[in-house]
């Protein structure tokens, strides 16, 4: 009786709290509340729920500009941008570009030497694997079956030649039956 009453109150309280939370906070406030809980440090935590800037070949015009907070001179420049563009100098045009974009296409597409690191690391681990396999062959595997002995393989090959295995393009076609040797 009292257990059921306790569960009911707990459920009602949590439902009431979640409803009030959704009603009073929009998404931005919600994330801000949690960011305040987690970051006691000086740096304000990045809000990944907001539109972000990306340098991507397949997304040439990102959702936001690169520079979010303009300095006084940059603000003045943005005002000047509202007038005729022919009055802008080359440096001002470049400054406006750099406000809007982080890297140019040429910069974002530049090649790098990362492939050398990747290939080198892959070969390094391949080498470690080779050492492991060598240890395994020496200490774990048993002996090879007798069918791998040189004498056995010779008898086996002789029998295959007697049977004329693959006489047109395969094994027996490479054997000279008159001279009793492999064809040159």
């Amino acid at each position, binding site marked *: 009786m009292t257990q059921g009453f306790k569960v009911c109150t707990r459920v009602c309280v949590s439902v009431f709290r979640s409803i009030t939370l959704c009603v009073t906070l929009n998404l931005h406030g919600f994330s801000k509340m949690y960011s305040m809980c987690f970051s006691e440090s000086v740096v304000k935590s990045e809000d990944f729920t907001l539109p972000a800037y990306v340098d991507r070949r397949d997304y040439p015009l990102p959702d936001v500009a690169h520079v979010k907070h303009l300095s006084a001179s940059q603000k003045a420049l943005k005002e000047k941008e509202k007038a005729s563009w022919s009055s802008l100098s080359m440096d001002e045009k470049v400054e406006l570009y750099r406000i809007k974009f982080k890297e140019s296409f040429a910069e974002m597409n530049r090649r790098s030497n990362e492939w050398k690191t990747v290939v080198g690391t892959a070969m390094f681990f391949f080498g470690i694997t080779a050492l492991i396999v060598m240890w395994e062959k020496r200490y774990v595997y048993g002996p090879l079956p007798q069918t791998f002995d040189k004498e056995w393989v010779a008898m086996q090959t002789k029998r295959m030649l007697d049977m*004329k295995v693959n006489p047109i393009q395969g094994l027996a076609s490479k054997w000279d039956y008159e001279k009793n040797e492999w064809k040159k």
Partner: protein
Amino acid sequence: MASSALAKPQVHGLWAKHLQFHIIGVFVVSVGVAALYKFAVAEPRKKTYTDFCRNYDSMKDFEEMRKASIFQRTK
């Protein structure tokens, strides 16, 4: 103000250019590979088989095998 270092890139007809390149390329590559296979693999193989079968005597072959004693039901 225009810099003279870079030429203006192509802005129109990119898909058409891509299509033309790839349509021609598809035909050239597929016909080339087929021709290469025909003349490097198929024709030599046909020749080898006809050369083998021209003077092939299966009874003589059988006698050779029998003499080499590989059969279990006949000596």
